[in-house]
């Protein structure tokens, strides 16, 4: 065997070994039978929770302030007539369903309408949904950066005669575990029992 072909076959052996290892890891992963979640499992698909925003008291808050809590991130605006209050009410009900564990969860409602949603407005709004709902907003660049990080979009329709306008925004609820890692993509339509069941599992981890 020439040195060249020897090097080649050594490389081939290494490649085969790597492929076999990969296959083994894959089958082992499949072997671990896990209960499916009600929501879509997106573990590892998106970056960890990271932001610097302003809360209802006008304080600057970051993701680190929520360490150890299961966080649900939802984008919206307080003037929203339909989906935002419905979603927040559903999430608040699911969190209440956890009983004493409810305090392990925070619903981060990120307003993408900072022009109308001042901290004061947010503070009054979040009080409607209970202590686990935290209203957040920020400067436009910070909101754009956060939206891009979680691949959501938002835009503003032209204002009507009364000056009010509709904000087109996402409906996804991104669930992060206590270490800030993305875990689930939740939908409001799933309903309180399903969402509460998923939350219970996340909190118990």
């Amino acid at each position: 065997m020439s040195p060249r072909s020897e090097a080649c076959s050594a490389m081939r052996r290494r490649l085969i070994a790597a492929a076999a290892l990969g296959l083994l890891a894959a089958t082992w992963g499949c072997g671990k039978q896990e209960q499916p979640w009600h929501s879509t499992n997106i573990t590892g698909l998106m970056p960890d929770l990271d932001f610097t925003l302003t809360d209802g008291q006008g304080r600057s808050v970051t993701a680190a302030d929520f360490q150890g809590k299961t966080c649900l991130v939802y984008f919206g605006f307080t003037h929203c007539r339909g989906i935002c209050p419905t979603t927040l009410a559903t999430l608040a009900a699911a969190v209440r369903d956890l009983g004493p564990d409810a305090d392990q969860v925070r619903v981060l409602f990120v307003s993408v309408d900072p022009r109308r949603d001042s901290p004061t407005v947010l503070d009054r709004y979040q009080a409607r949904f209970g202590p686990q709902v935290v209203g957040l907003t920020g400067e436009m660049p910070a909101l754009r950066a956060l939206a891009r990080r979680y691949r959501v979009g938002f835009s503003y329709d032209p204002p009507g005669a009364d000056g009010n306008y509709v904000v087109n925004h996402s409906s996804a609820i991104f669930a992060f575990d206590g270490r800030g890692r993305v875990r689930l993509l939740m939908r409001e339509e799933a309903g309180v029992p399903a969402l509460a069941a998923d939350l219970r599992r996340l909190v118990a981890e």
Partner: protein
Amino acid sequence: MSAADVLTFLMPYEPSPFVWLVCGMALGLFLVGLRRLRRRGRGPSPLAVLAFVLGLLLIYVVLQTRYDYYAQHLFSLHRLQHLVLHHVAPFLIAWAAPQAVFAAAVPNSPIRRFAAVPGVGPLYRGIQQPVVAGVLFVVLIWLWLVPRLHLYAMLNLPLYNLMNWGMAVDGLLFWWMMFNMGDPRSAPGAYFGLRLLVLALIMAPQILIGSSIALSRQDLYDVYALCGRVLPIDAMTDQQIGGLLTWIPAAMMSVAGALVLARRWLELPDAVAPDALVPGPRP
């Protein structure tokens, strides 16, 4: 539209140095090669130059401008993005056949050395077999439209890039095979019939995929609702337009390709026409 709006549109939504490098190098080398050939009084026709530059520009625009933001948030614009990346732009580039221009720019092409790496040559020839390339072309369209995989690709940036860049690369491979297959001296009629057949055959699955999306009564890709449609368009209209784009213009590209191919077939020198290969006395 103000200058600021234009600037906003031109700014990439997800800046990718990789795309800048590839597109920039392709354009730079093409221009260098073009100048050298022109100085020698040769070079491609102005139409071929236009086709190449337009193809490259289209790829850049759909990947690295604000267009990408809208394509991430509307199914119809996402389908248009793939139509450009997989069908239109690679078609133009392959039709322009810029290999002579690149060879003039880089006389000792590193591609030739890369092709000499064991395994690369056979692999390339394998995926450039007309039937294999056709299957690959259709399977890729289908694969990224599997709803679950589509959802993952829209949520995960590396997967999203893999999808888009993969479409562009596969598009280039496919149309390259169609228009530039083989060495015309050694294999004059290299699979002309087979290539035409593949062009016809890939229409059926594309029509099937596109029409089943366009005619579906349910929202197949709820990721766009979940992540926010940024223009006021309802989910079903968006899906129908996206389905139609996958169905009709995509399949029409096969017709355009067949016209190009048929013309090239007819233009083959008589010396290699089948009857000329039959031995025997000529009249």
